[in-house]
């Protein structure tokens, strides 16, 4: 519980997300606004689900710990479903806003494409979700103390950091896949996104047996990441061109004045 634990866990949990933000989003104010709006929608979903959970706890038996655990599990499932509902709501709002922006602005093309919006909103959801899960833990890790002194796991901070990183990346990938399937009206892939989110959350019920929760979660991160890559127009050919710096479109795009 020292500065090294604090910095290590912060960079594990938020490193990829901050890097993505700095390199792709920070320079464009419109993207920053949509990122914050995405964070706001996640926050609204959390508020609704904690309201429902709070009401159920008040009317339940506070002594029985198994009932409380059951209510918490119900709260988690409800929260996941509400998050995906809010993501859908945000998608609808963005479609309408894009048409409005087009009317207001003088240019002919939309200032931001729906694919960029998918990425940005997914990252917004991820940032807020990761922050809410991790920030209090990080704040506690700076102070004195011993982890797991009552017999709990000693790897609490580290596993939380890895889980948070996975969740942030997953939200970003889910955002891309979700918007793409809404555009193409593939409702089955929408259902797969929701089910994978539920799966990841339910896997965490096995904590502190981290092997059971972290390993499958990272497998899911990898698979959904691949799916998002192919959804957003990537392919092996594109990847090869990009990595060998031969992709003319990409090189030209970076010199286009904004």
């Amino acid at each position, binding site marked *: 519980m020292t500065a090294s634990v604090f910095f290590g866990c912060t960079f594990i949990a938020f490193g990829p997300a901050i890097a993505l933000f700095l390199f792709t989003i920070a320079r464009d104010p419109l993207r920053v*606004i949509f990122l*914050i*709006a995405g*964070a*706001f929608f996640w*926050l609204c979903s*959390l*508020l609704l*689900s*904690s*309201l429902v*959970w*709070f009401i159920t*706890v008040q009317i339940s038996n506070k002594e029985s710990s198994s009932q*409380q*655990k059951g209510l*918490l*599990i119900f*709260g*988690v499932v409800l*929260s*996941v479903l509400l*998050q995906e509902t809010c993501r859908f709501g945000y998608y609808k709002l963005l479609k309408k806003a894009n048409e409005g922006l087009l009317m*207001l602005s003088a240019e002919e093309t939309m200032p931001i494409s729906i694919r960029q919006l998918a990425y940005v909103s997914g990252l917004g959801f991820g940032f*807020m*979700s990761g*922050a*809410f*899960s991790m*920030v*209090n*833990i990080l*704040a506690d890790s700076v102070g004195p103390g011993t982890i797991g002194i009552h017999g709990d796991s000693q790897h*609490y901070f580290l*596993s*939380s950091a890895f*889980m948070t990183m996975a*969740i942030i990346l997953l939200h970003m990938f889910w955002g891309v896949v979700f918007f793409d399937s809404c555009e193409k009206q593939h409702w089955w892939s929408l259902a797969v996104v929701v089910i994978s989110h539920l799966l*990841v*959350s339910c896997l*965490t*019920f096995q*904590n*502190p047996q981290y092997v059971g929760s972290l390993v499958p979660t990272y497998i899911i991160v990898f698979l959904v990441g691949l799916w998002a890559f192919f959804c957003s127009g990537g392919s092996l050919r594109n990847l090869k061109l990009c990595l060998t710096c031969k992709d003319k479109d990409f090189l030209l795009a970076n010199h286009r004045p904004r």
Partner: protein
Amino acid sequence: MISVIVVMTIFLVVLYKYRCYKFIHGWLILSSLMMLFWFSFMYLGEVFKTYNLAMDYPTVAMIIWNFGVVGMICIHWKGPLQLQQAYLIAISALMALVFIKYLPEWSAWVILGAISVYDLVAVLCPKGPLRMLVETAQERNEPIFPALIYSSAMIWMVGMANPARHAEPTNQDTGMFCLISAYNPLALTMLRGVKLGLGDFIFYSVLVGKAAATGGDWNTTLACFVAILIGLCLTLLLLAIFKKALPALPISITFGLVFYFSTDNLVRPFMDNLAAHQFYI
């Protein structure tokens, strides 16, 4: 407190109407002097006390003198836009800290609510003092109070033929906040860039600062922060639609207050329970 603000605002508008520019400029310079030198000295003292750092007076005098003089030049005369924006933000933060430290617990929340209502009334009602201020300035074709406003971009006023006005091209709009709180909580587009009154910054900072100080929980602070930003986005959207001066406080402060109380009472136990079992949503 609210009556003080109302009285000072009306006083400022009356002064502006009767063209007592020298008095207003003197008042603003005096209050910015106080902010930059005295309040930052107090803040520095608190920081040294908290971290138990020993510091001698000559060093402190040099630091405060440099900070203050550069601030005065940047705000009231010319300076790089980035630096001027930084100084305005620093002043707003200092003012907000003063409010947070010296106002009692519940007074701060009630004042935030009351100020939003007053802002709504003062800017939108036909007889409201701030609306009269804006309209008078627009009639005289002058920059809207070049001393209380934060501007996001440079504005150039070129080609003004009227000799009655000061026709130099102004590089930036200076902005300042008056100590006894005559403020300009309005959002206004002018040529390019958006202008936001410094009073708005101060009350946003008071909200987030109080959430951080009393909440004890980082989630509450984050929630308030995001809520205020979204309120500001919505206000700017309304500004783009209506194209006239709008009150910047009501929407943001309402969102901020709602999210503060709901996150503190509803979300905090939920997230604490989840973290205890290490469940992730």
